[in-house]
């Protein structure tokens, strides 16, 4: 850090630039951003981010495949500043990063697959309201600093530590806009059911973040009686051509609060909805076998054995490994639409949840 003040304790290289505009251009030149301009991570801003959580900046949090760059608290703070995060968002990022590198999530595969899946942050608990994370109208869209910057910070650490660029090892054939930012809040206040964090073992009322790698949301028209809503939900989730349709795995269903209340009033708990979807969101064995990918013996690798062995052409193939592999989140505006986000399938991207630890 030639010329940098000796009082600085940062391990990261410090670069002197002429002005703000020069800093923004530098980050493009050094390939430190994936295409969007960043907030230059000045020492002052990075220090404030680190001070908020009171952690040792040199603490190693883990590595990001496929490059296996080493991420410290300091490096994650730099990404957070670049993304435009407030300091109060940093505890969420620390939990999200830890969830994302969990082996069950298979980040190495997510970062390099030809599939389009992208890690989605789902924030649950009182922190959603406190930090104004959008869990309502337009939850998957724009307009909220928290959603935009949290998702962005995750993308930047995946970029700068993971080294997965679309012109090298990131082989995502089509990708999707979640590669820019992908973060929603869960609307636990309007939900009749336990939160996603509670589904995954945390006490009700906990602040949690779940990382799940998935496609962009598919819109589902959900209107009418519960039966009339469940029909398009099941058909949408069982779309032929998703990885779920021939490898099972996990899937995400995002129901708007009105839909969730209708189902609840009809006597359906969240588990009952999962069970119903598991039984009815099915692809016929014949349809799945008609896909060209079957030449690669996908069924032998991914299907339940009883279906591989079945002689019935119309044996219904489930889209997930079991009802517990359907993740249900209540979010969005109270109108006619819900959404599903098919997962990467059996290869990975599985949901991992961590508690958000707030500084004392």
């Amino acid at each position, binding site marked *: 850090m030639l010329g940098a003040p000796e009082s600085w304790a940062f391990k990261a290289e410090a670069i002197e630039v002429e002005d703000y505009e020069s800093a923004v251009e530098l980050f493009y030149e050094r390939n*430190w951003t994936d295409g969007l301009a960043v907030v230059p991570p000045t020492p002052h801003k990075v220090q404030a981010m680190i001070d908020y959580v009171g952690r040792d900046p040199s603490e190693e949090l883990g590595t990001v495949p496929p490059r296996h*760059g080493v991420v410290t608290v*300091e490096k994650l703070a730099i990404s957070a500043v670049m993304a435009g995060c407030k300091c109060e968002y940093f505890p969420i990022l620390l939990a999200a990063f830890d969830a994302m590198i969990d082996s069950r999530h*298979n980040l190495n595969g997510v970062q390099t697959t030809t599939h389009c899946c992208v890690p989605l942050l789902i924030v649950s608990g009182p922190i959603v309201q406190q930090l104004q994370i959008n869990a309502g109208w337009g939850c998957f869209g724009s307009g909220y600093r928290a959603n935009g910057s949290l998702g962005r910070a995750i993308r930047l650490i995946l970029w*700068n530590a993971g080294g997965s660029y679309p012109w090298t090892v990131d082989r995502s054939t089509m990708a999707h806009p979640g590669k820019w930012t992908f973060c929603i809040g869960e609307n636990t206040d309007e939900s009749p059911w336990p939160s996603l964090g509670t589904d995954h073992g945390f006490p009700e009322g906990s602040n949690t973040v779940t990382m799940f790698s998935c496609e962009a949301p598919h819109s589902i028209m959900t209107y009418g009686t519960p039966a009339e809503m469940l029909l398009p939900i099941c058909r949408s989730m069982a779309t032929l051509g998703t990885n779920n349709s021939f490898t099972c795995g996990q899937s995400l269903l995002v129901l708007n609060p009105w839909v969730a209340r209708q189902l609840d009033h009809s006597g359906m708990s969240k588990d009952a909805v999962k069970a119903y979807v598991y039984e009815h969101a099915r692809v016929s064995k014949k349809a799945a076998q008609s896909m060209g990918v079957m030449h690669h013996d996908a069924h032998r690798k991914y299907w339940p054995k009883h279906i591989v062995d079945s002689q019935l052409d119309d044996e219904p193939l489930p889209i997930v490994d079991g009802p517990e592999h359907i993740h249900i989140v209540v979010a969005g505006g109270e109108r006619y639409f819900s959404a599903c986000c098919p997962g990467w399938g059996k290869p990975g991207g599985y949901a991992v949840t961590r508690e958000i630890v707030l500084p004392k």
Partner: protein
Amino acid sequence: MWVLSPDCPPRTTVESATLSSRLETMADKVIGFLDNRRAFRYFAHMKERIESEYRPKEIVYLAKAATTGPAPLEKIKELADRCDAVIVGVAM
């Protein structure tokens, strides 16, 4: 104005890795296959060709549980300890 680098270098790099020595021949050697589950029938074909044309001492075949995750370290070590050369994965 000062800014901090977001670059996160890995602990080891390709430049710091040492390549193993090359085999002169596969005859009378122990040859390993680490199937990344993308090889489909190609590795089976390759195994047949190697056996018939090179007469290795032994073929050790290991298939990973999943394509996109690494093989367990103990299995990698087993292959490294037992084999003179290992054919690793196939790109698709």
